[in-house]
């Protein structure tokens, strides 16, 4: 009976979403409170589950080995679900004020809460099939968020997003079917279920590559990345979540699952897929950071930056050694926190001044000092300059690269860090040091506190994780030692 409780954080958002859409709230305030509460309750319930039950498993519905909805909570799932639900709380606060100027809040919040449930579902999935189901649901649930504004541009981007996502899903499904023909057990077990002798190495190699690329669509791996800059037309909280946790990180999470929990590091290494895929990833890293330089739209620039940062994480995963995986997982957390901060800042600028382009925001640091300070700190962190959290994860990634005897990767990491500086720092400089004389009667136009406080708190997290990464590090270290 108690195991059913595992479902609560997954099902509860669904119920809440339905409630938001059906219950007639007295006014917006009540609805907002309801939303905030449901997000927080979800977070608390996750914490409770972890504390009371330990590691549990639960079969919801089983037809056969293949069609089996199965939930299991392990460290990796805990890691991802906590990350997602914490960031969801921040975003919920931020979105309440932000969405006022986008309109149609009701629809937004319905899918917003729904997506939370699905993300937790991804985290708690116990086998590949369940993961796949939730993964598809995620695409469908986020689609209305992407096309929220309903403009032609948004619809086009949404179309692109759907086509790419389903294209990827096809590859995954194909991989799953092939995998099932090799091995009927698709549960997630640390170090992989394919242990033992590998008979048809070629087939496994193909399957792995297929699934990697399939999930890689969501993780914006080149050449399947172009939906991500397109999806920038979504409202800022959505793009923040898309980038920080919900979508792209689900792709990465799934890749970790297949690499370390289905195939296992040993087998992946034997297939030599990691070498071919790492070429793609290197291109991803360079392409993202170089093309970010070309973007005039602030959010688009951040989107390309995400592509390159995701490349870092994927590199950490594909290098298949301990330090690299620690670096990858740590960067997953760090990038989530940093990128959500950057997006919130960009959104706050848009919200208060209506400016989207980098050339328009000269001198904005004087008007919105707190926001831009947070932006600056997050930017420095993304470059990987100590003492912020970005530097810690890059340190481990680089060590992982060296452990794998690939100096080239480290050079690329640093090159990309330099490019990161080149595309982010000019924004900060233009914002703070516009030159010219001070314009009189400049009033402060900081965003409302419900938007500002999440930004400041997240920046605090950025710096805190930079100074004291050990808590997260030891947890990640535990996971990594389990799977390698």
């Amino acid at each position, binding site marked *: 009976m108690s195991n059913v409780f595992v479902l609560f954080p997954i099902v509860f958002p669904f119920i809440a979403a339905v409630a938001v859409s059906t219950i007639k709230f007295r006014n917006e305030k009540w609805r907002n409170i309801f939303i905030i509460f449901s997000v927080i309750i979800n977070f608390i319930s996750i914490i409770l589950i972890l504390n009371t039950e330990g590691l549990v498993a639960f079969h919801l519905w089983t037809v056969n080995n293949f069609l089996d909805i199965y939930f299991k909570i392990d460290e990796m799932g805990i890691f991802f679900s906590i990350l997602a639900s914490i960031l969801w709380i921040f975003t919920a606060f931020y979105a309440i004020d932000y969405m006022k100027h986008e309109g149609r809040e009701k629809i937004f919040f319905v899918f917003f809460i729904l997506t939370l449930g699905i993300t937790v579902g991804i985290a708690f999935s116990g086998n590949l099939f369940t993961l796949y189901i939730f993964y598809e649901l995620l695409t469908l649930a986020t689609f209305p968020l992407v096309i929220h504004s309903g403009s032609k541009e948004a619809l086009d981007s*949404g*179309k692109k997003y*759907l*086509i790419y*996502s*389903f*294209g990827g*899903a*096809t*590859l995954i*499904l*194909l991989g799953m079917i092939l995998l099932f023909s090799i091995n009927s057990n698709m549960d997630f077990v640390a170090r992989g279920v394919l242990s033992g002798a590998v008979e048809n190495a070629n087939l496994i190699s193909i399957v792995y590559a297929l699934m990697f690329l399939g999930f890689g669509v969501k993780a914006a791996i*080149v*050449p*399947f*990345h*172009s939906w991500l800059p397109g999806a920038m037309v979504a409202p800022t909280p959505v793009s923040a979540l898309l980038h920080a946790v919900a979508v792209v990180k689900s792709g990465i999470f799934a890749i970790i699952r297949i690499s370390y929990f289905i195939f296992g590091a040993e087998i992946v290494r034997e297939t030599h897929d990691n070498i071919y895929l790492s070429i793609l990833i290197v*291109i991803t890293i*360079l*392409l993202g950071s*170089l*093309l970010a*330089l*070309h973007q005039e739209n602030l959010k688009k620039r951040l989107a390309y930056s995400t592509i390159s940062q995701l490349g870092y994480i994927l590199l950490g995963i594909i290098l298949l050694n301990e330090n690299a995986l620690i670096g990858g997982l740590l960067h997953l957390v760090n990038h989530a926190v940093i990128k959500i901060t950057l997006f919130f800042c960009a959104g706050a600028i848009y919200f208060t001044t209506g400016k989207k382009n980098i050339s328009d925001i000269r001198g904005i640091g004087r008007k919105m000092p707190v926001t831009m300070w947070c932006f600056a700190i997050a930017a*420095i962190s993304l*470059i990987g*300059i*100590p*003492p912020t959290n970005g*530097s*810690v994860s890059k*340190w481990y990634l*680089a*060590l992982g690269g*060296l*452990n794998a005897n690939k*100096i080239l990767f*480290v*050079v690329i990491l*640093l*090159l990309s*860090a*330099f490019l990161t*500086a*080149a595309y982010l*720092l000019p924004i900060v*400089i233009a914002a703070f*040091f*516009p*030159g*010219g004389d*001070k314009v009189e009667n400049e009033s402060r136009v900081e965003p409302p506190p419900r938007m500002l406080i999440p930004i400041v708190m997240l920046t605090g997290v950025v710096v805190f994780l*930079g*100074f*004291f*990464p*050990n808590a997260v*590090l030891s947890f990640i270290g535990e996971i990594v030692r389990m799977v390698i």
Partner: protein
Amino acid sequence: MIGRKSESFRNLFNVIMTGMLFLVVTILYKPVSRNAIELFIPDIMGTGLYLKLDIFRYIFVWITVFIWFLTTIYSTRYLIKYKNRNRYYAFFMLTLSSTIGIFLSEHLLNLFTFFEIMSFTSYILIIHDEDEYAHEAGKSYLGMAIGGGLVLLMGLFLLFDYTATLNISELPLKIKEIGSIKYLVSGLIIIGFGVKAGMVPLHVWLPKAHPAAPTPASAILSGILLKTGIFGILITTGVIMEGDILISTIILILGFINMFLGGLLAIFQRNIKRILAYSSMSQMGYILMGIGLIGILKEHKAVAIYGTIYHIINHAIYKGLLFLGAGIIYMILHDLSINEIRGFGKHKPILKAMFLTGIFAVIGIPGFNGFASKTLLHEALLEAQHIYHNGWFTVAEIVFILSSGLTVAYLLKIFIAVFVEQNEKYWGQYKHHIRKRVSIPLITLSGVIVYIGIRPNAVMYVIDGALVTFGLQKGLEAEFYTLNNIKASLLAVAIGVTIYIGFVRKYLRKQKGSESWYVNPSLGWLNIEKDIYSPVLKFVYRFSSTILHAIDQSVMNIVNYITNGIKAFSKMEIKYMCYKKLNIYKKMQLFSNSNEKNSYHLANYIHNISPEIYNVAGVLNKLRNSLNSMMYSVFIFATILVIVLLVLFL
């Protein structure tokens, strides 16, 4: 923060803070001279914060705090007309703390952290004016600082990978074991630090950043921040690599190039601060030479260590003095070109005396502090010549003396232009501009210069303690005022005066009637930044952008090609079919030449057929249009599945 409430309170607060710090550091000398202080706080940044204060570091810290204290006093006056003063002070203090952090760090990762913080905070000082020139200078500074920082980081990665430690005191032992990869590692680290130290060819930011920054900032930039780079190089070559010959030789050669090039370029400049910036570069050359000699002299390295550290101290003091002096001129006239400020100081005895002290100190006239350190460095060079009997060292000595001559020449150029020449515009007005608060630092610095100049052994005693860091025990007794040393110094002066009269007066100074001005022919010369770095960077940038753009759009393009291909294909088919029909028609015609009716029928038939075919294409088109995105993706899904299943069954 405090400054929002009250300007004067903030100024006082800053002065008191730096003053207190200065006092604390000075008091610390006693305990530090007995035993090194170590501090370890675990858990910060995953590695812990590991600080250490021994005499070697103490010298750096002390000189930092000392110069900082004086420039803070000076700033309170100098900045009075500037905007954003609060920001300036905030970052001024942040830079101070991170600089001290650099000198104290025992763990290289901590050092790197402080190094990066310093780069950023000092960047904000450099672009304080926020005008185009400052931004331009700031851009090259920041670009090079970050680039250098990343190269340094690369070196640290490799170092950690091979030695598994980054504690400076443990590294000398470990690095011996890793073989020749250590050259790569130390090379990377030295390049990283070399950017900050203004090492050729990584110096391009230096002559731009100094004139751009407000004067107190340029004073600390030149006096202290350059030394952080030097500190790093010294640690790497002298301590970690234990004076490896190869690395030392490279540093030595770079030092000579720095020395000579800096001096040569300084002669051509017309902006005082720019002259002083190139002069700093040249003086860094002396220090680098000293570092190189530490390695080359091996057992006899004591004299080189003394010379290097001594010169670091001295350079900080006299360059601070000169920059602050130039700042006074700028504060009054808001111009630094010696064509404009010509003759400004003729009627200003105090300023003149200060400046002269500084100049004598740089040149190394006996009785001023520069003499002591230059003599030691010269001794070290002679020692090397003595040991190796190598022709190159003779060349080196010539370069050394020639550079000293150049030093004399460019300083004479400033001095004569600003303080000796006649200019009816300035006759001693502006007296009221110079307040006591400004002159206190100047007078203090000149006092220190003269004191050290007269009693050079006082500093030697302090440096004794630093020898331990380099693995030496016994000190060295030096006799400074020997006939030979003074002769060498005077020789340099003589060469300098000759260069000045023979070259500067003749070629760089144009005269027209009573008017005279200086020209700068070097403006058109090869500029490393403009002519090499930028084009290469731009080319790489454009090239890679093009390729990556292509990749970026690749999927879209491929899809487009396929669509176009299919379209073209379908059209072709239609044509082909028409063609076939036409063929049939022709054949029919052949047969039915006699039967006109039949042929007409056929033509009609063909006419009917072709719209039908077009209609099929149209239907397809319609179908495609009517498929919305959802259907389209499901369609793709299905297609791929079918293909795959086919492949599987085959």
